[in-house]
């Protein structure tokens, strides 16, 4: 009888989930393994289901305090994190740059230490400087979730994009994903590239050469400056918002010209495969990177992304905020 030996194994009957989560912080997708990314996506399945219940709230993070610390303006990401925290029964405080003491000259570290002195358990940080989350994560006991740092990473946005692709197409490996627009200044693009490449997708970046330099090929992706060549064989197109507020003249000739060369117009959309997904992290500039009819069309999964964003953020808060530190 070899029972004594076999009982020490912890494999569940369905054989799944050999991996367990050990991270207190989510800083970016660059440092996550494919297995960890898949683990978050599987956990998201469970939390998405909570949204269909009569009582859309679970006690998982009851008694924990989450601070939404948004040094850079954001409405949708902040409210998504806020609602995710409510659904997990955590208490939430929102602090924006204008209401914080940062404007009075307090350093980022001092502000964060003050938040920690209030026994905040989870800090969700949006910051205009790349690396700010890493800086704080090393210095704080609280869990740190990166909600976007400069042009560096926006991990929960990429996770919700991955989740949406997986949900709609049943897989990610082998799919051809085109990311179109301002790649150079986009943290969404970077996080998406890391995640998609790790999960085995083929990625093509599309945009003007000033915003999509060939340097990106080092990350394992293809670069194209001709959208019409890429659209016919894409399984997913992810259109990034043209960030007027960050554009400088030397990178970007003008909105009209961008739309003419890279906008997903009604005419261009005819080049797409019938089952190609159209994604956009929002907020969309109708008539700039995407035509209004296309944004509201059958291939568009833009609103699914919003719904899935809530579930992904619940999963991330549960995983990072739920482990004892």
């Amino acid at each position: 009888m070899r029972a004594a030996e076999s009982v020490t194994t912890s494999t569940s009957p369905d054989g799944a989930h050999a991996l367990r989560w050990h991270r207190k912080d989510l800083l970016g997708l660059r440092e996550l393994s494919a297995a960890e990314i898949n683990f978050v996506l599987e956990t998201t399945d469970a939390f998405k289901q909570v949204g269909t219940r009569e009582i859309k709230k679970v006690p998982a993070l009851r008694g924990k305090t989450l601070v939404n610390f948004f040094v850079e303006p954001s409405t949708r990401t902040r409210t998504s994190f806020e609602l995710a925290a409510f659904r997990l029964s955590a208490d939430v405080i929102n602090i924006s740059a204008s209401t914080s003491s940062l404007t009075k000259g307090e350093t980022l570290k001092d502000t964060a230490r003050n938040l920690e002195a209030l026994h905040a358990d989870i800090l969700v940080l949006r910051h205009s400087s790349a690396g700010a989350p890493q800086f704080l994560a090393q210095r704080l006991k609280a869990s740190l979730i990166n909600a976007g740092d400069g042009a560096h990473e926006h991990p929960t946005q990429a996770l919700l994009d991955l989740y949406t692709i997986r949900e709609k197409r049943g897989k990610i490996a082998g799919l051809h994903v085109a990311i179109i627009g301002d790649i150079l200044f986009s943290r969404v693009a970077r996080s998406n590239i890391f995640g998609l490449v790790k999960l085995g997708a083929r990625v093509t970046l599309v945009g003007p050469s000033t915003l999509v330099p060939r340097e990106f090929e080092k990350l394992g992706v293809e670069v194209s400056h001709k959208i019409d060549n890429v659209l016919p064989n894409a399984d997913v197109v992810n259109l990034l918002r043209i960030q007027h507020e960050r554009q400088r003249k030397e990178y970007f000739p003008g909105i009209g010209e961008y739309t003419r060369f890279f906008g997903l117009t009604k005419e261009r959309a005819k080049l797409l495969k019938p089952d190609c997904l159209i994604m956009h992290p929002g907020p969309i500039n109708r008539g700039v990177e995407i035509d209004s009819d296309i944004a509201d069309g059958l291939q568009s999964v833009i609103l699914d992304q919003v719904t899935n964003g809530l579930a992904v953020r619940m999963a991330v808060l549960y995983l990072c905020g739920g482990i004892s530190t």
Partner: protein
Amino acid sequence: MKQTKQNSSTAVPIMDAEAIRRALQRIAHEIIERNPQLEKVVLAGIPSRGVEIARRIAGFILEIEKVELEAGVIDVAMHRDDVGTRPELPVVRASKLPLPLEGRTVIVVDDVLYTGRTVRAAMDAINSFGRPARIQFAALIDRGHRELPIRADYVGKNLPTSMNEKVQVHIGGADQPEGVWLTKPKTANESC
């Protein structure tokens, strides 16, 4: 008693596959007896072994009464009261219950009843889906040491244990051979 060779702990066999089969068959009979409106019963297994046990009980009820019960999954991980106190989180899985629950009897099914905290979490989880007429509980093993005022309605086997022992249930999928073992701590055995 003979020691199991080279193992740090000793596993005492409690039930084999045949004993599990008979116990689950008896539970099926008891469920039929206590629920005259059998078609209103929903079996909700707690992942992962409770799901398999619920599936087998449903199989016996179909054999005996020709009634096919609705089977569901109730995940308790996000309803537990010890999140944040353990270095490893329990894996969460999606729950699946036939809705609405109003007017139904939900029978929660698990492999081992111990402190009662898992069942409490399961009841909370069920209530977030709606308000069933009643909730009952079936466990393959009741090992005692309750920390909450909870009892099982259907028990496969009562197994007196001490708190430093472990009960291992192998049923379904990769769990081979099937059976139930009681694992005693190392020191207790060596001193014998």
